[in-house]
């Protein structure tokens, strides 16, 4: 049985620091997606919101917030929170409700307004919250995790600081051709390597910023798309994979890994298992992919994803990068949108934005950043506390 759903429309609000209410961004993205799909607001039967936890109650009930803002129509709503993977959870909820026959047309919407600087834990003393404790006990920040992974690559696989900088240079160049990216600035290797060291070996220009932004996707049943005479880009798989005990890879916000004394390590590490699940569900493999959108919270993390998505063998990510395989025009372009390096992270919108990029690429509508002849693509990210997500789309 096919589990495909159609992507009828996509829309985004440019990423940036605009200082406006997150709802405004979301409305712009929604209106663009409706226009792109050729639908009216009243055609939407389900509003699946990805939550933001930094904008008070309206952010927690994102589905209802956008339903009210666009005008109540009695539609179904849902709101999903899974940190950075919230958007993928919302996409999966919309897909499941369509496949279950509860609705034919669903809007997935994620929007955020973020504070300046590194994301910090919520205020107050919370001695039972690992996300609070890691800061108090040792100053373990988000860049700590990115940097530990990066240094491990250097000591074990021979990655260099130049490799990490080269990822930023590549993604910045990709992002220059994307009108929705926050930054449109070309970087040289030297400029990146001269930026201040934040968490050795990672520098300021290699760690993603936080941004405002919004992305929307309109999903429909294949039958509905057919009734509109559209040959749509299809969602082929949505993995919302969690770790398998014992999780022996260090996951934010933990300060330790699970013990593998009683139960031996799972066959695949967490990140590899996310992509594996998506490929299985889609009936496709890494060789079928024309492009990938991955969560480059740091430039070095993008290299881990090459291996976890099966784009190359373990320890060979640096070679893939150095050979130019992952830039537009290469064998398997990664982060054609410009990635988080060009966007900065707008948490609930980011996983939705990844799917917008796949859609434009697979339609052949990606302009100067178009991957020629793209037929299928994969997205990947991880949200705090074990929320893996990966979406596969194809023509």
């Amino acid at each position, binding site marked *: 049985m096919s589990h495909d759903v159609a992507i009828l429309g996509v829309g985004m609000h440019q990423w940036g620091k605009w200082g406006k209410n997150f709802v405004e961004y979301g409305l712009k993205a929604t209106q663009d997606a409706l226009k792109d799909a050729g639908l009216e607001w009243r055609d939407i039967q389900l509003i699946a919101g990805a939550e933001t936890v930094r904008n008070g109650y309206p952010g927690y009930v994102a589905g209802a917030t956008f339903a009210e803002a666009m005008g109540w129509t009695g539609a179904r709503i849902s709101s999903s929170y899974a940190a950075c993977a919230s958007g993928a959870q919302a996409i999966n909820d919309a897909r499941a409700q369509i496949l279950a026959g509860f609705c034919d047309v669903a809007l997935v919407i994620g929007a955020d307004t973020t504070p300046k600087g590194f994301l910090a834990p919520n*205020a107050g003393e919370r001695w039972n919250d690992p996300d609070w404790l890691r*800061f108090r006990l040792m100053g373990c920040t988000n860049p700590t995790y990115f940097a530990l992974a990066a240094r491990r690559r250097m000591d074990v696989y021979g990655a260099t600081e130049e490799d990490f900088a080269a990822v930023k240079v590549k993604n910045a160049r990709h992002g220059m051709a994307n009108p929705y990216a926050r930054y449109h600035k070309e970087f040289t290797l030297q400029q990146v390597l001269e930026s201040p060291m*934040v968490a050795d*070996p*990672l520098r300021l220009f290699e760690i993603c910023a936080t941004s405002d932004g919004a992305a929307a996707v309109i999903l429909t049943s294949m039958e509905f798309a057919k009734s509109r005479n559209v040959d749509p880009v299809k969602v082929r798989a949505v993995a919302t994979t969690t770790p398998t005990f*014992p999780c022996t890879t*260090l996951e934010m916000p933990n300060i330790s890994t*699970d013990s*593998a*004394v009683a139960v031996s390590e799972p066959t695949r590490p967490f990140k590899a298992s996310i992509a594996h699940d998506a490929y299985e569900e889609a009936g496709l493999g890494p060789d079928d992919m024309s492009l990938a959108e991955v969560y480059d919270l740091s430039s070095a993390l993008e290299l881990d994803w090459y291996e976890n998505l099966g784009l190359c063998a373990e320890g060979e990510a640096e070679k893939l990068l150095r050979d130019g395989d992952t830039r537009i025009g290469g064998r398997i372009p990664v982060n054609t949108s410009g990635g988080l390096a060009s966007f900065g992270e707008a948490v609930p919108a980011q996983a939705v934005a990844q799917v917008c990029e796949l859609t434009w690429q697979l339609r052949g509508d990606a302009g100067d950043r178009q991957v020629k002849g793209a037929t299928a693509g994969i997205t990947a990210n991880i949200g705090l506390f074990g929320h893996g997500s990966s979406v596969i789309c194809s023509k």
Partner: protein
Amino acid sequence: MSTTPTAPVIEDWFSHDPEPHLIGTRCKQCATYYFPKQTSFCRNPDCFSSDFDEVPLSRTGKVWSYTKHFYQPPEPFITDGEEFEPYTIVGVELEAEKMMVLGQLAADASFEDLKAGIEMELVIEKLYHRDGTDYMIWKWKPTAS
């Protein structure tokens, strides 16, 4: 000798006695180790135990990775003294427990000496000083060769 009173940053997570070590728990049924301590329910999906022994963890292990921080983290991080000083975080793999535990690098150890795979030992050191008290935490230090 300093007479500054000391207190742990967090109670019952580590001990000096007889040597510095972390305090974990071990499931009485499946023998999985936990740090921080698990006391209510075993997280092994095939184990339904809620009985744990409190156990000392290995006080030596091997470096998995490490990073030095040059910017002051947001609260609830507490800076020791007036000025922020860069600090290093190390992930150390404990062989017997088959797990990794993060901690800061000991004050007198050098970031430049670190390398994946080298042996480290656990020490108890000051994390920050506040209101006349030194608040103590576990840290990792290259084993004296």
